[in-house]
């Protein structure tokens, strides 16, 4: 077990180190100079030169790499070129939008997907199963941005229940924020729920064929009891894998939904920073996203161990 975790941790550190080198190199070769960008069409080259020195862009590549990585290790991500505030502050503010949005969406999608998957599986071939899976098929096919716009037109423009755009900020209170995140979260959740429900269904069906379920049934448990007591836990493993992938996907990939709702999330910050050549922000966020993905994979690996005792045995062996 300890060996297993140690191995995972080591590969995590190596992945991160390689990632910082790749990120730095890619950003080095990206054309476009942040100082020239900030000075615009009419700015003097003299002012741009002064700005370049102010931003520390006149230093050598190796020096900048080490000061960047060294800074991150001590928690100092540098100062954003365009916003002129610490990158950690920028990322912190955005994370407080992106992470709650992602968690909200995943909770919604799990709440929808798990019951739908179980019901479908337990009534396989029935009209309920067919219609639920038909809906899931539609859910997978619908692009989430289209669905988001539809939701806005209904709930904001016509009914006026929600603001169409914006995020009040957590100091405005918990409920106003949850309210602002609701339509975006639903828009993100439904397509994910559709995928998850299908995985859940096939996973449950597979589990129900297993010998231990037959044994349980033979001991006198009903189909439902057997499923709940013995089946679900096993059926959750593939679902967890998908959930882990979805978390990473939603965290970094929420950019379209963030744009539609003008939410100040991480996705939009990356996009904006790339366009403005705020390269120090781009580097740091991409590194953090890599960290998040690696950590989540690590966590999912740990949860496997909790859910599946067989892995624990293997770890010992």
């Amino acid at each position: 077990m300890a060996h297993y975790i140690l191995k995972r941790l080591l590969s995590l550190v190596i992945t991160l180190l390689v990632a910082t080198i790749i990120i730095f190199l890619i950003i080095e070769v990206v054309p476009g100079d942040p100082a020239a960008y900030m000075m615009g069409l009419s700015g003097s080259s003299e002012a741009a030169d002064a700005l370049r020195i102010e931003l520390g862009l006149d230093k050598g590549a190796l020096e900048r790499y080490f000061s960047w990585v060294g800074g991150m290790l001590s928690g100092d991500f540098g100062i954003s070129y365009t916003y002129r505030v610490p990158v950690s502050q920028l990322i912190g503010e955005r994370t407080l939008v992106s992470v709650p949005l992602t968690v909200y969406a995943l909770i919604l999608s799990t709440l929808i997907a798990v019951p739908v998957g179980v019901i479908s599986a337990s009534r396989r071939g029935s009209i309920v199963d067919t219609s639920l899976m038909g809906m899931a098929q539609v859910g997978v096919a619908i692009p989430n941005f289209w669905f988001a716009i539809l939701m806005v037109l209904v709930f904001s423009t016509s009914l006026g229940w929600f603001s169409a755009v914006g995020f009040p900020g957590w100091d405005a209170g918990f409920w106003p924020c949850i309210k602002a995140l609701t339509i975006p979260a639903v828009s993100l959740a439904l397509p994910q729920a559709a995928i998850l429900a299908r995985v859940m269904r096939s996973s449950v069906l597979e589990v129900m064929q297993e010998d231990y379920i037959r044994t349980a049934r033979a001991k006198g448990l009903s189909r439902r009891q057997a499923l709940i007591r013995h089946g679900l836990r096993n059926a959750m493993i593939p679902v967890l894998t998908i959930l882990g992938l979805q978390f990473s996907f939603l965290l970094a990939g929420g950019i379209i939904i963030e744009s539609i709702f003008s939410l100040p999330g991480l996705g939009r910050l990356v996009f904006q920073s790339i366009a403005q050549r705020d390269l120090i922000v781009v580097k740091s966020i991409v590194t953090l996203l890599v960290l998040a993905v690696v950590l989540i994979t690590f966590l999912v690996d740990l949860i496997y161990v909790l859910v599946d005792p067989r892995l624990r045995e293997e770890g010992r062996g």
Partner: protein
Amino acid sequence: MKITGLLLLFYLTSKTTALAVILNVGLQLEPPNLDPTSGAAAAIDEVVYGNIFEGLVRINKDGDVLPGLALFWEISTDGRSYVFHLAEGVKFHDGSNFDAEDVKFSFNRARAENSTNAKKYIFAPIVLIDILDPLTIMITLDHARPDFLFNIGLGDAVIVAPESASDNAFNPVGTGPFRFKKWVRGDRVELVKNDDYWGLEPRLEGAVFKFIPDPLSAYTAMMAGDIDTFPNYPAPENLFLFDRDARFDVVVGLTAGETILAINNKKTPFDNILVRKAIAHAINRKEIINGAMFGNAEPIGTHFAPSHPDYVDLTGLYPFDLGKARALMKEAGYENGFEATLKLPPPTYARRTGELISVELGRIGIKLKIENMEWAQWIDQVLRNRNFDLTVVSHVEPMDINIYANPNYYFGYDNADFQEIIAKIDESTDAAETSRLYKEAERKIAEDAVNGYLYQLGKFGVWKKEVKGMWTNYPIRSNDLRDVYIEGAN
């Protein structure tokens, strides 16, 4: 059940439709920082100019120069020295007093060697800054500069305080009618009324500038009532929807943005005036304005704002005439045409206009390959390294015809006659003479067909009917809210 309950809760907490005296202003671009004296982003001025920061003089909605922190001024007969008489009892938002020292500090900071002011050239003519008394300051220039007063009315020349200047990027402290409250990056900037304002009290209690980059979201936000006013609505194709809706006013005005097909005058075959004239004849402005701007723009024939009194309408100089255009191509030796690239920056107007241009030039045998690029790439390749054939861009700086006098500017127009005209304008102290010279300059670049002159970029104002006092035009990029009010709210 649970979901219904949640929806009901949201319904009860959803905001009422009554207008508050806080104005919600929609802007497409978020400013990178809030210091107008650093960096060139127009989005900075769109939030802070006239609201948080003020200059010695103020440019109003008609582009006129009005008294600002200087109540009045005298100009010496040789046009070289200006004596500014400053307003009394003015306080910065942090409570510190405003006086001539702040003016001296601001201008010296802007012209210092390590200055990052994007329009440092405004301050280059200054030779002396003398404080005569705390409320009187004399500025002496190297020689007469008729545009000096207008220039120090720009956002780049606002007055800042030495105590707070270094933090203005994120905590702006000015003398204006509104003070900075907070900035939720990626979402909004909030301003509140400055109760100690030295001038006329503003009528709004505050303003929230909300940043909505996506045009479709701008539409839904207006329709849902989240936004009271969108001073420059990003999607001209939707304007008719607001026009039809009784809740909104649609006001189409002009910006100081000349949209041009910029030509690399140093590169073959574009160094040949016959080719440039052929291009000018091949351009169908009406088709472009209808196709790219849905009819909402004014054609231009030179690099000058049609709203300016000195503007000369030169759209008839090289009228749309394919026969003439083809004849000119033949005369230039390109009867069979040639291939070239058209590099387009990201704004929608540029992309749409560029696509139409490629069709129009295709008609006279110029086969264009369109390359779409980001701003940073465009600035690098086109503006700095002049590695381009053609591009479409809007020059949004007011009164910027003098860029044609710089032979190193990206379109590479190097003409001694033109440079002399601009040099004369720089020194002219006579208004009638200046006006005549401007007209001469406009005609010169139009005749030389330096660039393809297409249209003046429109300003598409959409706001609720109750909102009064918004600017119709953008003589400079500003949403000065001092005169704005909401009818029936106070």
